[in-house]
């Protein structure tokens, strides 16, 4: 039981980070149809900027705020200078642009910061909490709670504000949204900014557990993308479920099956799910227009 619980919490913690990255993917994808492979770099920015500003003497909450701010500015710039000028280009072209952006951001990070690994102190100490025999880092609760807050805020924003509804309308049908007077460019900028903020928050929350460096983004982008697809691209609920599921698959795979093949295990499950449900768990069926 204690063992099961240990795997469960480990999986949920890692999964919550995947979920936030997947949520970032989803937000941008819904507003613009772009699969943003630079999503992992927002997580890196969140962690690295917090590490460096707090090392410069800034109190942690302020450092975190600055990190989110920096990520948002970079997200907006990514949209303004890389995505917007290529408006109307094919989906693969846009993907390659975001891959270029991720290489660029990593390159900048090596110059502005460095190539070393960095840590951040846990928000509320390192003493593990005992839950029915499982030892849990207090930071795990911050990650889970933080992710829950982000999801909740996003939900309220999308369902209960006018701007949020405009985002949903743009996601549903960009042309129709424009016809009813929604400025879809602003909505897209908003999505990039919001997605960057979510990524940065994930980076700040998880750095005390996982450490950070200029190149943590690549793997997170891959895992976040996988999570988003598992849940069904374009569905925020799917992104969260997909992320948590992927984290749990890895933890239980490592715990009960084989730690060497745990990534394989996760991808085999993704393949099986997709064969059974080609639109992911919560995806919409898309009818191809001829």
């Amino acid at each position, binding site marked *: 039981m204690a063992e099961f619980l240990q795997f469960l919490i480990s999986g949920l913690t890692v999964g919550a980070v995947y979920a936030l990255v997947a949520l970032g993917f989803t937000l941008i994808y819904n507003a613009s149809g772009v699969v943003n492979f630079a999503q992992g770099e927002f997580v890196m920015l969140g962690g690295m900027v917090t590490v460096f500003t707090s090392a410069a003497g800034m109190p942690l909450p302020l450092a975190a705020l600055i990190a989110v701010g920096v990520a948002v500015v970079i997200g907006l710039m990514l949209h303004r200078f890389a995505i917007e000028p290529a408006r109307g280009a094919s989906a693969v072209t846009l993907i*390659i*642009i975001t891959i*270029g952006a991720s290489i660029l951001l990593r390159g900048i990070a090596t110059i502005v910061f460095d190539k070393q690994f960095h840590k951040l102190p846990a928000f509320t100490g390192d003493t593990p909490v005992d839950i029915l025999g499982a030892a849990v880092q207090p930071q795990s609760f911050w990650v889970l709670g933080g992710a829950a807050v982000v999801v909740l805020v996003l939900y309220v924003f999308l369902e209960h504000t006018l701007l949020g509804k405009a985002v949903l309308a743009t996601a549903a049908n960009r042309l129709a949204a424009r016809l009813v007077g929604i400025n879809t460019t602003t909505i897209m900028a908003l999505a990039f900014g919001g997605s960057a903020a979510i990524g940065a928050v994930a980076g700040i929350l998880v750095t005390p557990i996982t450490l950070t460096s200029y190149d943590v983004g690549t793997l997170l982008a891959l895992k976040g993308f996988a999570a988003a697809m598992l849940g069904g691209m374009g569905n925020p609920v799917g992104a969260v479920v997909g992320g948590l599921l992927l984290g749990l698959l890895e933890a239980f795979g490592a715990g009960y099956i084989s730690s060497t093949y745990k990534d394989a295990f996760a*991808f085999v499950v993704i393949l099986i799910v997709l*064969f059974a449900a080609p639109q992911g768990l919560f995806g919409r069926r898309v009818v191809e227009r001829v």
Partner: protein
Amino acid sequence: MRALVNHRILTLLVLAAMIAALPLIFPSSYYFRVASLVWVSALAAIGLNILMGQAGQVSLGHAAFFGIGAYAVAIGPAHLGVPPWAALFLGALLSAALAYLVGRPILRLKGHYLAIATLGLGVLVALVISTESRWTGGPDGMPVARLTLFGWRVAGSDTWYWVTGGLLLLGTWIALNLDETPTGRAFRALHDSEVAAQVVGVDVARFKLQAFVIAAVYASLAGSALAFMNGFINPDQAGFLHSVELVTIVVLGGLGSVVGSIVGAAVLVTLPQVLTVFHEYEHLLLGLIIIVAMIFMRNGIVPSLSGLLFRRARS
């Protein structure tokens, strides 16, 4: 039609002339090495372009087939006593078989779902290669026996320049011809609209599978060539980042353009060599160049530039 045939022959002739002429301006064997790398990457990219550009199906795991080809010529002679040249064909056969087996279920998926499924396939193959170290030498890789053909030991940068150049010519010739066969036309119909293609009676599933198998064989042969050329191979060549690099070559050069894949490979292979003078700014510049190139040549270098030239010629 005649114009098309001529265009094809012209492209091949120019490519052949270029391969023959480049050594005249090469100051050292290092340039042969870089050019051979361009030819190998171009070969893999041309194959992937048949799948992506002509049949309109994305693959984010294509390096898996590259890796299978590479490890076939490494493992075959070292562990199974297969002669190197036979291992090359065995690798291609294995890649084709794998593509055929997984192709049917995977190719039912569309767009990004296909991307993640192929990505998963790539991750699985790379993981097996780097884990089963008894056979593959693990993450540090393994040596590859030299290729010998009828007693001729194929070695040296210069020799491999000609061998890979010849392979590229062959691959280009096949791809250009495929373009104009009924299969090629079916591929393009798929690319434009799967539903429409189905309506006019194209067996969508069969042609997608064909494109996938062809692309896998191209990648496998390119992988074998690289492994022979280096005399050493490691799992990076089968990894996710290499898959992304192949896709980038195809898109940067131009989806659906055979020449584009060669240009894309030339750019992406030589850029890091040229950018070394900028030291730590190397990656920053590489990213910037990719972004700017895609913004201003959104259909890829070759289609965009040739479009520009045609427009100018007309006006």
